[in-house]
């Protein structure tokens, strides 16, 4: 045997391990639980196959209503996100003003905020006794709150718009800035007026970015959990919330599983549709001349609608966030009772007084969050790194199947994943249900795609000759990896790891399915305190959580990763 064919053989066995190890992990902790979920939803108590639960999902009037409401709120939220996002995209593409770049990076904020903190902010700001209503009552001397949006469809839609408008702003804004003005000028020289130019030239050329961003927003709104849980009240429930209620409150595992099956099929369909949609729009237009911008701050009567829009959306975006921070430092309700600055809330959440509300001391939750986060990070890196190598380096028969098997978790909602993990490991030898390992596993499965996303582009950019050079100099494949490749992909690996950590910290949907009281994480504590209307403590915990996840994302940006495009594929905090 020539030395060359020997090394080829060794490479093969290494390659086999790279393919097999992550598949084994996902097989055991994703595909097997998913299969169990399907089994549970499609079988009687006794064990016989049945479509009873599945058909109940479609025939039960209440569940029909839930599915209908899920679609309706997602559609309305998407439209509102578009209605807020499109004008902002226009502003970013056509105006210059001090702080434009800062504002542009601020559109990331909703992205990096755990959604339970956003939900809390909406309760505090838009609630009947919230800051906005109190302000309006004071300004116009009203007897009762003028805005009753909370615990209604509109509260959910508004919060979802807050969360998803930045996607539209970013994607459409970028496309608009890149759109060469000569297209519109051509139409103009040919005689087209302003409206026709917009409708016949600008809009069709922006359509790819608009459609993709709206499709993405729709998927996020369809699968959103914490916001609906917190803002829907008792009357409004989506599929995600209903699965949670069926499983964790009513303990109806079979109907919950059936509903989860339907949801998984829908979300996989959406994800597939989105990828197709993205692929259908690969028109890259050349930009010769940059789009001219004009100063925004030059008031004229014609600009009043523009300024009004900016002010209103400013209130929508800043109000909830400011409320969380303000309430975390405030004692009392304000108004006639007066309010005062305090650090009490921060002291409270670090002491065990809250135990009665949560079932565990809040400090424990903070420690839990960090423990689960670090474990999820380690797992996500261990799974994501070999997959990255396979994706970047190997072509083999079954590569498409491999891609599908490792990327499908992106299309499964967090609640469904939590449910699957909850029910799959009830008995020895792997009795993981009710242990912290299950939560860490769920978070690792949610997070490892981001490790792949961070590492693969770097690996693909590496010169192939580097490893060959190392090996021709005498290094084994393993040493070439350790001494050549690993140092070069370190940055991507770090980005992926920090991202995984941040996802785990902010994630609530899977955790709420899996956590026992002593396993509660920071988002769960916020949710409990919110449900108990202990808003000061919830706010203080939210500020801590925002600072931690925000810090993690700041690290990622520091590492030079373009956070937006990075986080886009699967924001599920």
């Amino acid at each position, binding site marked *: 045997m020539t030395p060359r064919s020997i090394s080829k053989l060794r490479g093969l066995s290494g390659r086999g391990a790279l393919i097999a190890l992550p598949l084994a992990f996902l097989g055991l902790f994703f595909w097997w639980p998913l299969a169990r979920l399907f089994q549970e939803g499609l079988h009687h108590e006794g064990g016989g196959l049945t479509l009873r639960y599945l058909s109940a999902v479609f025939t039960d009037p209440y569940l029909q209503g839930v599915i209908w409401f899920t679609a309706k709120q997602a559609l309305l939220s998407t439209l509102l996100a578009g209605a807020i996002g499109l004008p902002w995209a226009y502003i970013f593409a056509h105006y210059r003003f001090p702080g434009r770049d800062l504002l542009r990076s601020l559109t990331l904020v909703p992205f990096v905020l755990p959604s339970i903190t956003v939900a809390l902010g909406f309760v505090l700001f838009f609630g009947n006794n919230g800051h906005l209503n109190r302000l309006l009552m004071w300004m116009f001397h009203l007897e009762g709150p003028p805005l009753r949006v909370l615990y209604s469809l509109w509260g959910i839609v508004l919060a979802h718009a807050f969360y998803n408008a930045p996607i539209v702003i970013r994607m459409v804004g970028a496309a608009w800035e890149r759109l060469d003005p000569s297209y519109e*000028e*051509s139409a*103009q020289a*040919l005689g*087209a007026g302003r409206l026709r130019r917009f409708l016949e030239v600008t809009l069709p*050329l922006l359509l790819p970015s608009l459609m993709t961003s709206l499709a993405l927003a729709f998927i996020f709104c369809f699968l959103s959990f914490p916001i609906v849980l917190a803002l829907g009240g008792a009357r409004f429930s989506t599929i995600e919330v209903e699965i949670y209620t069926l499983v964790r409150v009513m303990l109806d595992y079979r109907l919950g599983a059936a509903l989860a099956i339907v949801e998984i099929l829908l979300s996989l369909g959406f994800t597939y549709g989105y990828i197709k949609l993205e692929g259908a729009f690969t028109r890259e237009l050349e930009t010769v001349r940059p789009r001219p911008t004009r100063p925004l701050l030059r008031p004229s009567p014609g600009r009043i609608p523009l300024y009004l829009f900016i002010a209103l959306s400013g209130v929508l975006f800043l109000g909830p966030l400011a409320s969380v921070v303000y309430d975390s430092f405030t004692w009392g309700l304000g108004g006639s009772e007066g309010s005062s600055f305090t650090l009490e809330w921060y002291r409270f959440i670090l002491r065990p007084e809250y135990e009665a509300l949560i079932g565990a001391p809040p400090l424990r939750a903070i420690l839990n969050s960090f423990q689960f986060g670090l474990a999820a990070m380690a797992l996500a890196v261990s799974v994501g790194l070999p997959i990255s190598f396979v994706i970047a380096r190997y072509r083999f028969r079954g590569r498409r199947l491999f891609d599908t098997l490792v990327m499908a978790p992106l299309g499964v909602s967090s609640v469904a994943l939590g449910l699957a993990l909850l029910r799959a490991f009830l008995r020895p030898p792997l009795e993981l249900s009710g242990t912290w390992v299950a939560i860490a596993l769920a978070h690792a499965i949610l997070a490892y795609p981001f490790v792949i996303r961070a590492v693969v582009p770097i690996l693909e950019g590496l010169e192939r000759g580097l490893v060959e050079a190392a090996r021709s100099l005498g290094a084994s494949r393993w040493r070439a990896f350790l001494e050549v490749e690993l140092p070069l992909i370190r940055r991507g690996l770090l980005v992926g790891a920090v991202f995984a950590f941040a996802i785990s910290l902010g994630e609530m949907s899977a955790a709420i399915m899996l956590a026992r009281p002593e396993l509660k994480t920071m988002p769960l504590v916020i949710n409990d305190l919110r449900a108990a209307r202990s808003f000061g403590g919830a706010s203080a915990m939210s500020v801590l959580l925002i600072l931690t996840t925000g810090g993690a994302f700041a690290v990622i940006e520091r590492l030079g990763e373009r956070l937006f495009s990075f986080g886009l594929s699967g924001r599920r905090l």
Partner: protein
Amino acid sequence: MVQVRLERVTKRFGEVLAVENISFTAEEGEFLALVGPSGCGKTTILRLIAGFERPDEGDILFDGRSVLGEPPEARQVGMVFQNYALFPHMNVEQNIAYGLRFRPGVDRKRRVRELLELVDLVGLERRTPAELSAGERQRVALARALAPEPRVLLLDEPLSALDAKLRERLRLELRRLQRRLKITTIYVTHDQEEALAISDRVAVMSTGRIEQLGTPEEVYHRPTTEFVAQFIGRGNLLAARVEEIFPSMVKLRLAPEVVVTARSDRLEGLSPGQEVKLLLRPERLRVVGSGATGNRLRGRLRDVEFLGDAIFLYLDWPGGELRVKLPADELRPLPEEGTELELGFAPEDCYIILP
């Protein structure tokens, strides 16, 4: 077809003076080229005429009537952009028909057909811009601009995206088309050869001003400024001092030992001792034997470029570098690099540029 006149037009972008007090007239049916290096303001002039920019000062008139009050969509100009800006979501036919929708009473189908024939694209109606070659795109853009029968045609570097061979073919086509339609055309390019080849008159521009406006022969053979002499045709510009002035003749000293005679009918303004520039076109220089009389320069051959139909010689001489273009068969065998050569030129081929 209209006459287009710019009167004392100035345009600033912030601090940058893009166009400075420019006046010129493109006559009815004329093909006028604006040529200059990038950033000289030529595209801005086109955009001012089209109405995409408003002048800070001055006026723009079509047939003597100011058009400053008219927005671009009302000016009836046809414009071809550098990147063509074909609407990617419409096919060839829809692109060409786009401007016809704003002209009532036009038989659209017939007009589109006419234009497809005009630019020789019949059969490609259903293609989208992405499915066209670069040359086809250029012709669609031209057809689209011409379809509504504009009063003036504005072309912004319409050939710069094409490779050299195609560029030469299309510029000839463009020229023929313009002759046939007799449409007033203003053509912006940075390529001086293209400008000379295609236009009735050329405006040579630098940094917001027109250096010279004239026929291609005028700007080539009788440049009025150093910039024009250098930008058009890459002439040899030699520093010279006026020695003696005769009727329609002048003696110039190029170097302590070198005095040449130039014939010119524009000697007013010259005085003995004055520093001027002497323009010698590379193709007017000849290699002569050592015994020859008349104007001569002696230099050392540094490089020889053989181009098939022509040879370029680069010579070092005390005043700098000389570029010589010869027909290929004039010098055989090719001289060795490093040899001393004598160059001769006629007094008629000397052109004096005042500083």
